[in-house]
């Protein structure tokens, strides 16, 4: 018997007037999962979260939202028993820290005798000293402390689902890294399902069990961080998460291992893919670190190789990016090749601007895109 998903979106649509905020959203979230919704601003991720929280309702006949198997389309937020951390924390400015944290317990009619203990426990859970902070007002806290109060206010309810709307956006980088780890640990230790909205791809890759990448009101791709990063299905996903080089061409002939594609910069092989038809357009994405650069004629056998000229070398510390211009009839295609930095002072790489070179990669290392 398969487990009932904690959250399920089935064909959910939401329009505001003429504006289609989300279109045909489908996904299921498993119990205890750290699930991220990732996308640029205006992609519909916040609307998706608000649909789950109950601040918005799906359109009529606009699909169903289920929580633990129950349809909650028309349920008000306070009937849903979920917790949420807001982007700007939304701490009640007129209530002290402890009163903020106790608010949800009071609303749930928890007996007054139990409240102080639970508040204290929640504060300790987010590593806020109750003796020091309980009586403070939100205005007297730093950004990071507010963040922790907001988290405690949500966790004190022992929710099965915790929604987080870009909660780390407003704090500085170092603290953010720290909080990322802490959130991930809380997710695992409490067994609470986290639904995390962010526009920061690195954050999503670091923390999530699975990611839904949203683009233009739809889910563009759903998968584990590795699936999303290594097998982007669309040009958008490939571009939005990490860096990618794109090559296009026309499918010429099918061999045993894949297709031979004729591109403006030369021929290359791609693996077999359902989206490719004879004579049809093909687009592929290759990560810079999966590309290699070699002297003309020195490409390893069996790899795709396109000829070009080194146009720039960029020093990034851990790696170096060698930019290669591949002539393509009307203009050049800029390709980025990542090369491991083995010490430029002792063992500098041999590439400098103007060198003739070939860019090569194994056919299996490229990702065929569905939107060619």
């Amino acid at each position, binding site marked *: 018997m398969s487990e009932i998903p904690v959250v399920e979106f089935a064909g959910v649509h939401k329009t505001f007037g003429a504006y289609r905020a989300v279109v045909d959203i489908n996904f299921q979230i498993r119990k205890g999962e750290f699930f991220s919704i990732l996308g640029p601003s205006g992609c519909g991720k916040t609307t998706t979260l608000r649909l789950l*929280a*109950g*601040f918005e309702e799906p359109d009529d006949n606009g699909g169903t939202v289920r929580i633990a198997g129950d349809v909650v389309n028309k349920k*008000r*937020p*306070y009937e*849903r*028993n*979920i*917790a*949420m951390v*807001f*982007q*700007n*924390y*939304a*701490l*009640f*400015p*007129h209530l002290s820290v402890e009163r903020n944290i106790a*608010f*949800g317990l009071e*609303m*749930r009619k928890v007996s007054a005798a139990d409240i102080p203990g639970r508040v204290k426990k929640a504060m300790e859970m987010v590593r806020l000293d109750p003796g020091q902070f309980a009586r403070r007002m*939100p*205005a007297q806290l*730093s*950004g990071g402390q*507010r963040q922790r109060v907001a988290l405690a*206010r949500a966790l004190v*309810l022992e929710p099965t689902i915790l*929604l987080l709307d870009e909660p780390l956006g*407003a704090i500085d980088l170092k603290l953010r890294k720290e909080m990322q780890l802490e959130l991930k640990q809380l997710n695992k230790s409490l067994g609470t399902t986290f639904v995390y909205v962010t526009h920061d791809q690195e954050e999503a890759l670091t923390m999530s069990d699975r990611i839904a990448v949203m683009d233009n009101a739809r889910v563009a791709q759903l998968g584990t961080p590795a699936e999303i990063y290594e097998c982007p299905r669309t040009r958008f996903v490939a571009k939005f998460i990490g860096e990618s080089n794109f090559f296009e061409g026309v499918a010429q002939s099918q061999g045993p291992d894949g297709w031979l594609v004729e591109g403006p910069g030369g021929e290359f092989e791609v693996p077999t893919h359902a989206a490719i038809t004879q004579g049809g357009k093909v687009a592929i994405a290759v990560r810079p670190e999966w590309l290699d650069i070699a002297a003309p004629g020195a490409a390893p056998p069996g790899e795709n190789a396109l000829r070009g000229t080194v146009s720039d070398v960029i020093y990034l510390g851990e790696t170096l990016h060698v930019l290669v211009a591949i002539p393509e009839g009307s203009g050049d295609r800029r390709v980025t090749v990542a090369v491991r930095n083995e010490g430029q002072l002792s063992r500098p790489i041999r590439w400098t601007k103007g060198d003739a070179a070939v860019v090569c990669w194994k056919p299996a290392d490229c990702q065929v895109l569905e939107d060619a």
Partner: protein
Amino acid sequence: MHSLKMPIWLTAFVAAVYAFLHIPLLVLVVFSFNESKYGVSWTGFTTHWYERLWERQDIIDGLKASVVVGVSSTVISTLLGTLMALAIARHEFRGRRLMEAFLYIPIVTPEIVVGISLLILFVLVNFPLGLMSVVIAHVAFNISFVVVVVLARLQGMDRNLEEAAMILGADELTTFWRITVPLLWPGILSGAMLAFTMSFDDYVITSFVTGTGASTLPIVVYTMVRKNIEPSINAISTIILVITSLLIFAADRLGRDKPLVKSEE
């Protein structure tokens, strides 16, 4: 802050404008303690003119009428204005922009026009002119001001706070009483103070819609100013000044209390 040197003539000019604004009132206050009944030569300090005020029944009655009118018109206009502001800030409805624009008309309409048009209405429907008609008029010109003040506060308020309360389990009514009202309270109070001050000060509109037995303090003072010249006017003016200054000071304090709700840094 970047320091920009002010030319001395500019500072002097501005000082002169401040003098122009405040010296007349200061003089008025000072001479309310002058012994001499005639003229403006200083003959000695006295509180005689203040004591005299208590002997004048018309002033006592005027003060009472002003307080009654002020309090009741403030309560009504604050209540109605706050409800309207809530509707405008928190709800989408057809004609919302039109409603917002409409609310500014009473603010720009000259008092005299408000006064006489109400007089026409009251006479037309045979409504007796008295305290009641004055209260009605004061509410009519105060509502818009209350709406503007409360609306500003509401619009500066973070909607997420109400949503946070709801997701924590508070239904709409609980959210309203435990979150919205406490946060809106300073706005409501400063709107109320504003309404009371305007009601307490109004002469023009009141003069048209008042009737026998309903002379508010400004009506009495106007008559005194007209008939002239007894230092009692200085004394009552001073009292009015003190009352309104205190109200304005309080409203000003409330208007800009602590950080306005946005919990970001």
